[in-house]
């Protein structure tokens, strides 16, 4: 996918690199051995995932006795069995997770872009102080806030609702995304704002009509990172959701081992595959943005 997207400049760069490697005397043979080592590491790392997919398609009895990746006997019924194995069927858990993810993305895009525009493009009293404070919260370990926040949400009657998981995202509490957008907005020429002002745009109009459309790459990065982290999120739902009807996919998956069933491996692996599929899909679709995003902010 990405090879076809390479710009001519990158290709030129690669030729330079090749020439460079040759000048350093690293032979074709050493380059070959480098590929062998990298492929071996890659295979090692991918093996557990491939084993997961293969096990999800094997009958229970074969999972631990037949170690080949290509199933000797196929049992796709694991997927239908797993789908209905728990109290509610997985459609419920998937739609719960989806609702939380979509609203979290909207919340982060909305609140973080507002804050980022304020920090990056506007001048106001105390801007530097607030910006430093924002950077400080990036380093603050979340567990310090955990207990008072839990008490607060309990007092608000928000236990067993999605509010504790969603509302913070609408309040720009994720400083990483603000920082990412600030970095991006700072790279846009300020002449744009000046031109807009001369044409009579106020700050809101400038934000909405000039800056926002240009920030699409930063938004894509934020959306993908939010998707992955919220989809994987385990601690928050574990803490705030006790009603199985509200469970997200990770909470539901854990029930496979929580309940009696140390034996329903096939269905469990089948649902594990389904739970990872959206992340892998987003990863393939948005790799460009992810790589750029973590290179500029060090997001995980």
């Amino acid at each position, binding site marked *: 996918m*990405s090879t076809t997207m390479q710009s001519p400049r990158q290709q030129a760069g*690669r030729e330079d*690199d090749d020439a*460079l*490697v040759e*000048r*350093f005397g690293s032979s074709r043979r050493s380059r070959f051995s*480098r*590929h062998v080592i*990298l492929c071996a*590491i890659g295979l090692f*790392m*991918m093996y*557990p*995932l491939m084993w997961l997919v293969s096990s999800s398609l094997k009958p229970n009895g074969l999972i*631990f006795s037949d*170690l080949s990746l290509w199933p000797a006997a196929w049992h796709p019924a694991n997927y239908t069995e797993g789908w209905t194995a728990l109290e509610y069927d997985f459609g419920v858990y998937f739609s719960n997770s989806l609702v939380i993810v979509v609203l979290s993305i909207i919340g982060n895009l909305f609140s973080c872009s*507002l*804050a980022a525009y*304020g920090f990056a493009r*506007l001048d*106001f*009293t105390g*801007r530097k102080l607030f910006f430093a*404070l924002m950077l400080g*919260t990036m380093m603050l*370990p*979340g*567990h310090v*806030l955990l*207990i*008072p*926040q*839990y008490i*607060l949400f309990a007092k608000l009657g928000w236990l067993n609702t999605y509010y504790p998981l969603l509302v913070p995202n609408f*309040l*720009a*509490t994720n400083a990483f995304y603000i920082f990412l957008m600030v970095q991006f907005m700072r790279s846009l020429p300020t002449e744009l704002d000046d031109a807009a002002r*001369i044409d009579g745009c106020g700050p809101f109009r400038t934000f909405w009509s000039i800056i926002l459309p240009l920030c699409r790459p930063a938004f894509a990065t934020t959306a993908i990172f939010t998707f992955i982290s919220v989809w994987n999120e*385990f*601690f928050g739902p*574990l*803490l705030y959701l006790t009603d199985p009807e509200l469970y997200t996919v*990770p909470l539901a*998956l*854990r029930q*496979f081992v929580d309940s009696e069933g140390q034996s329903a491996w096939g269905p469990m*692996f089948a649902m594990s*595959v389904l*739970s*990872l599929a959206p992340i*892998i899909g987003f990863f393939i679709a948005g*790799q460009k943005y*992810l*790589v750029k995003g*973590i*290179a500029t902010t*060090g*997001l*995980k």
Partner: protein
Amino acid sequence: MTASAAEAAVMPEAVRPPAPLRGRRRARRDRAGYLFLLPWFIGMLFTIVPFFASLYLAFTDYDLLTPPEWIGLENFTAMFSDPALLQSLKVTFVYTFVSVPLSLAAALGVAMMLNRGIRGLPWYRAVFYLPSLLGASVAVVLLWRYVFGLDGIVNAFLGRFGVEAIAWTSDPDYALTTLIILHIWTFGSPMVIFLAGLRQIPVMYYEAAAVDGASRWRRFRSITLPLLSPIIFFNLIQSLIASFQTFTQGFVMNNGGGGPANSTLFYNLYLYQQGFNQFNMGYASAMAWTLLVIIAAFTALTFISAKYWVNYDN
């Protein structure tokens, strides 16, 4: 600069700010800024108030039902004689100080192999980066339990070399090792940051060094390491802070118990048990602040040490 000055010269009279309105304009500008930051300000309330509230709770006995009762330093002194707490500190320290250096070394090593003149870079990068997105998910931690199970593929693989089956997940001597391996498996995100950093190092430095006859190791020691040191520093701080707060891996690996024999009882897992199973909110808050101080101390140490090994003048 000159461009905007030229623009100012041709600006119509009406747009130019009249001097007496300065103060009012300033206020209007402030108001716009504060409006944009409004959600963030409210969000900060959700951060700052709990921050100080948990500091207060750390000095109290609080079970959520009766009002908090001030007990001074009792929570903190109790921590020193709590064997489970000391165990959870040990688990977290061992986990952090083994897995962070190993995963950063793996990240740097692979990034250097990928850096220059390699075909198929996007593919390799994707393969190495993907696990770091999955490492914290419940599905992968569950998978790990079975990959390292008694009749899992790891034992089957080792068995070919004559190694006897190891009870990775149920033997207290090995349980943490499996989680350290899981951490190393996710070296992809620091690797991508290293790759970006390596790309910034000018090729001519290496050319000059090669002309001078510097060996491969010498070029790594004298060019790559110093020029990459700010990024190593950044990755180190990030990984330390994240690793001190490990939770899901310990929770899912052994059904929330931190077993076997508390060998995967991470600090945050024990904090969760104290707060939300035992409802010792005061004690849990004291634990939270203790960890904050520990993290701050290690971060500060890393910052102080940076003077001796991080190179900022390029």
